[in-house]
C-alpha cells in the first residue's frame, strides 16, 4: 500500500461518536476508518459502508460442498467400483444425506472463514499500524486521511469541536505488511522516513 498522513481522534462514548461520524461525512473529509473495541451496531451504516456479501460467499461454498459430496459418493458407488452391499441400491439417497449435510457445513464454514481472513487481510505474521493502543480496549478511534486538499489544523479543530480527545497527526502505512509486534520494523520505518523527506 502506501504511507499516508492521518489525523487521529479518540472518542469515549458511542453517543458522541455517531454524531461526529455524521459531521465528518457531511463536511466531506476522507474518513479512513473508525476502530472500535467491539462491534458497534449501526456504525457501518453511519459510515456509509455497504453491506458485506460474505453470506453469499458462504452459500456458494455450501452448495459446492453439497454437490461435491453427492457427486463423489454416487460416482464411487455407480461408476468407479459398483459394489453390491446387501442388495441395496447403488444410489441410496437417504443414506447419503448425513455425509452430504456434513460436507455442506464444512465447505461453507471453512470457505467463509478463509474468505473473511482474505478480505480483512488477517493472517499469522501480518502486521498493521495501530493508531492508538487502546483502540482494542475502550476507545473509539476515528482516523481521517489527509489529502492534498485538507488542512491538518482545520481537521484537528473540527474533530475537537465534534467531541474528540487526544487529537494527533500520524504518518503511517495504510495497508498491511509482514512483521512482528514485539519489534519495530526497520524497512517500514525507512519507508516512512523517505516519505517524510
Amino acid at each position: 500500500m502506501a504511507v499516508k498522513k492521518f489525523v487521529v481522534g479518540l472518542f469515549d462514548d458511542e453517543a458522541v461518536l455517531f454524531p461526529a461520524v455524521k459531521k465528518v461525512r457531511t463536511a466531506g473529509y476522507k474518513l479512513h476508518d473508525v476502530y472500535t473495541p467491539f462491534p458497534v451496531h449501526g456504525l457501518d451504516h453511519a459510515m456509509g459502508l455497504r453491506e458485506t456479501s460474505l453470506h453469499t460467499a458462504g452459500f456458494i461454498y455450501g452448495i459446492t460442498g453439497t454437490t461435491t459430496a453427492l457427486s463423489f459418493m454416487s460416482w464411487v458407488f455407480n461408476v468407479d467400483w459398483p459394489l453390491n452391499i446387501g442388495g441395496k441400491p447403488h444410489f441410496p439417497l437417504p443414506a447419503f444425506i448425513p455425509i452430504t449435510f456434513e460436507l455442506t457445513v464444512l465447505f461453507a464454514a471453512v470457505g467463509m472463514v478463509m474468505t473473511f481472513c482474505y478480505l480483512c487481510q488477517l493472517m499469522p505474521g501480518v502486521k498493521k499500524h495501530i493508531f492508538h493502543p487502546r483502540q482494542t480496549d475502550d476507545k473509539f478511534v476515528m482516523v481521517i486521511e489527509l489529502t492534498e486538499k485538507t488542512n491538518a489544523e482545520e481537521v484537528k479543530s473540527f474533530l475537537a469541536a465534534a467531541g474528540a480527545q487526544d487529537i494527533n497527526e500520524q504518518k503511517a502505512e495504510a495497508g498491511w505488511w509482514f512483521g512482528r509486534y514485539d519489534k519495530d520494523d526497520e524497512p517500514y520505518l525507512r519507508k516512512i522516513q523517505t516519505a517524510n523527506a
Partner: protein
Amino acid sequence: MHLKYESTLREPLVDGVKDYHQVTEDIISPIEGKPGKLWYVGFFISLTLLGFGAFSVFWQIYFGVGVWNLNKTIGWGWDITNFVWWVGIGHAGTLISAILLLFRQGWRTGVNRAAEAMTIFAVMCAGQFPIIHMGRVWMAFFILPYPNTRGPVWVNFNSPLLWDVFAISTYFTVSLLFWYSGLLPDFATVRDRAKTKLRKLLYGVAAFGWTGSTKHWQRHEALSLVLAGLSTPLVLSVHTIVSFDFATSVIPGWHTTIFPPYFVAGAIFSGFAMVQTLLIITRKVLHLEEYITLGHMEAMNKVIVLTGSVVGCAYLTELFMAWYGANPYEFATFFKYRAAGPLGWSYWIMMTCNVITPQVFWFRKMRRNVMVTFVMSIIVNIGMWFERFVIICTSLYRDYLPSSWAYYRPSWPEVGFYMGTFGLFFTCFFLFAKYFPVIAVAEIKAVLKTSGENYKEKMEVYEEESAEKFAHDVAHAH
C-alpha cells in the same frame, strides 16, 4: 442515547460498576499475572493423568486390543461409552455459542468462550476412543475415502460409522473455526496492552493482525451469524449420527426411532453440567463472579432441568415401547436385563442421577445455590456416563444365545485410557484458563451498556416515559 433498551426487570448480566476499560482489566489481567498455586497443582495432576493415559494406550497398542476386557459378546464397552459421553459434553458449548446467539440470549456472552473451549477439548478426547478401539491404530487412515492401490476400494458411504467420521471431524473443525474467529479481537486486546516482548510477539501472531476496523467488525458479525446458523443444525446432526451407530443396528435396546432426539437432549444435559463444573471453579479462581453471575448459573440450571426431564421421558417411552411393541426380545432386554439382572445396578444409578436428582432445580433457591449446582453438575455427568454404559452394555451382555451371555468389567488399560482423556481435557482447560481470555471481552462490552448493573440503573428514566415518546426518540436518534 443508546439504541437498545432493556427492561430493569431483567437481571443485569454484568454486576458491579464497570466501564469498558474495567472489563478489559478484569478479564485480561489474569493472563498477565503469574498463575496461583492451585493452578500448578491442578495442572500437574492433569499432566500425570495424561501421562498415565498415554501409558495405557501404549500398552493397548503394544499388546493388542486383547488387554481390554471386551469379549465376543460385549464388543463395545468403556471405549464407546466414553466416546459418546465426551461427544455429548461438547454439545453444550455449541448450543451456547450458536443456538443461543440465534435466539438472542444475552447471557451467553458471559459463558460462551469457556463453553466453546470445553467443546473443542471434549471432542478431542472423544475422537481418541473410536481410533484407538480399532485395535490396529496404524490402519486408522483406512476410514478416509482416499484413492488407494487396492482397486481403489472405497469406504462404505452407507455405514453410520463412516457418517460418524464425517460428523465428528466436521464438528471439530467448525467449532474450532467459530471459537478462534471469536478469539481474534480479544487476542488483539491482549497484544495491544502487552508489556513484555514475548507476549506482544505471541499474541501478535495469534491475533492475525486484527485492528478493530469497522468494516472488519461488520464482516466479523456476518461471519459469526452464519457460523452460528451452520453450527445449529450441525450440533443436532452430530449426536443424531452418533445415535445412528446404535439405532440402525438390529440389537434390541438399540433399534429404536427415539434415539436421535433422546441422544441430543442427553448431550445438552451432560454438556451443561460440565460447563457448570468448569465455570464454578473458573469464576472462583479467576475472580469472575461479576461476569459469570448467579443469573447465568440459574439459566443453565433451567436448561439442565428441561433436558433432564426430556431424557427422563425418553427412558419411560423406551420402557413403554418395550412392553407395547410386543417384541419378546426387546421386552427381555429392558425388563429382565436392563432394569434388573446382573448389570441392573447401572440402570438405577442412571435413573437416580439423571431423572430424580435434577428435579431439585425446579426450585429457584436451588438453581441459584453454587454448592448445590456444583454437586448436581457432577451427579448429572456420572448419570450420563451410566446412560451410555447402560445403553451399550446391557443391550449386549444378554444376546440371543444364552451360552454366549457374559459379564463385563473394565481392565486397567481401559480405565487408564479414560483417565488419560480427563488428563488431556483438564491440561487443555488449565492452559486455556491461563493463556486465553476466558470470557469474550468484546462481546461483554457490546452488551455492557444495556445489561451492566450500573447502566441499568440509568434506564429508569426510560421506564417512566411513554412508549410513543421512546419510539419517537429511537427513530430519530441519529
